[in-house]
């Protein structure tokens, strides 16, 4: 699948086929995509635990649910529990020096081993780590980059994915999660039981409402030719139609198949 189409095809999937397992290699590809994400100071901000549906008892799945994370735990063949890690400072110096040695952080941009020791680590990384709010911001943002790449890798392989909340206390015990990890999301993975395009692309506001040029509030002007190209390449797709009878019929069929509330 072409890159632009992968972005355009991604939706949050809520109905998975419980009888169609996910190939392990596809999970590995998702994790490697996450591992390749951009990351500041070369830190390891993200940890993930992959759990198959059959590895969780009915009781555990019930306990992991939240009011809005419900049947996904019953349906998705794979759940990936994502956590943010605040340990990035522990290897911060060495990782940064690696980049200096590789020439990724060159002296042309002010980088040297001494700068790492005396400024970058002691005056930037460590204070960030020591400030609870800043640390949470840093870890969440950096983890989010990894999750996004994992999701796109899943879509590229024909899988459905969705992020959701989970009962973090139950998961902590179940997965043996260390105290210093910060729960992010559970990522459900599986082959969609619903038509992944059935309800169209999720509505998004035009670029001009949220993206600006020069100063905040000055809309970024779209080039209609580029917009059309993105339509042709399926990054921009037709949005869903409210109360679409076909979508309603599909949800009804899924509810009947799985005995869900309707």
């Amino acid at each position, binding site marked *: 699948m072409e890159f632009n189409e992968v972005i355009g095809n991604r939706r949050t999937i809520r109905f998975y086929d*419980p*009888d169609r397992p996910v190939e392990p290699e596809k999970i590995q590809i998702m994790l490697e995509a996450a591992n390749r994400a951009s990351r500041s100071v070369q830190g390891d901000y993200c940890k993930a635990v992959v759990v198959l549906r059959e590895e969780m008892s009915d009781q555990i799945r*019930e306990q992991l*649910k*939240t*009011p*809005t994370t*419900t*049947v996904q735990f*019953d*349906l998705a063949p794979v759940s990936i529990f994502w956590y943010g890690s605040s340990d990035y400072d522990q290897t911060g110096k060495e990782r940064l020096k690696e980049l200096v040695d590789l020439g990724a952080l060159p002296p042309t941009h002010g980088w040297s081993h001494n700068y790492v020791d005396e400024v970058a680590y002691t005056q930037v990384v460590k204070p960030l780590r020591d400030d609870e709010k800043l640390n949470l911001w840093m870890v969440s943002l950096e983890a989010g980059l990894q999750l996004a790449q994992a999701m796109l890798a899943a879509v590229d392989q024909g899988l459905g994915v969705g992020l959701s909340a989970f009962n973090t206390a139950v998961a902590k015990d179940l997965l043996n999660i260390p105290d210093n990890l910060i729960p992010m999301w559970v990522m459900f993975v599986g082959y969609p039981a619903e038509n992944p395009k059935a309800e169209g692309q999720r509505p998004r506001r035009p670029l001009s409402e949220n993206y600006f040029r020069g100063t905040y509030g000055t809309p970024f002007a779209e080039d209609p030719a580029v917009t059309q190209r993105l339509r042709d390449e399926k990054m921009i797709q037709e949005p869903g139609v409210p*109360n679409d009878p076909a979508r*309603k019929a599909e*949800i*009804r069929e899924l*509810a009947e*198949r*799985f*005995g*869900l*509330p*309707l």
Partner: protein
Amino acid sequence: MTPRARPRSASSPSDSGCPCESALDVTGDDATQAQLQFVSVQRWVAGTTYDEEHSDRLRQRLDVLRGFLASIDREPDSLVAFCFLRKKDTGERFVSTKRRGVVNEQIDSYVQAQGWTGKAAVANGNIVRSFLIHNGIPIGGKAWTGG
């Protein structure tokens, strides 16, 4: 339900103002008609537009709900009200996690008492959950996966 199910706003379904009447041709015995007088039931029926051409299934759902409510000795509006509490300082209404859990267990007990098993157990329990969901109470459903 429902010797206790008292009409709330109208004496007959035809002038109840229930949106369900335009969406669904719901007729039935007195118990069903009495059920449809409750605001919470009207809201539920109006919300189940995914199934608007299947009024027979709606009657079956009303029966399941009625049986559950009888088992816990509550009327539908009262069950919804039970799931909410108000903050002492602001008066803001919120769903009580504890009470929702109590109701969830009551649903499971009812399903068990009825002797429903397999998919019927899951689907019938979720009928009651659907009633709660359409009344603003997000309550975890289960899925039938054939296991």
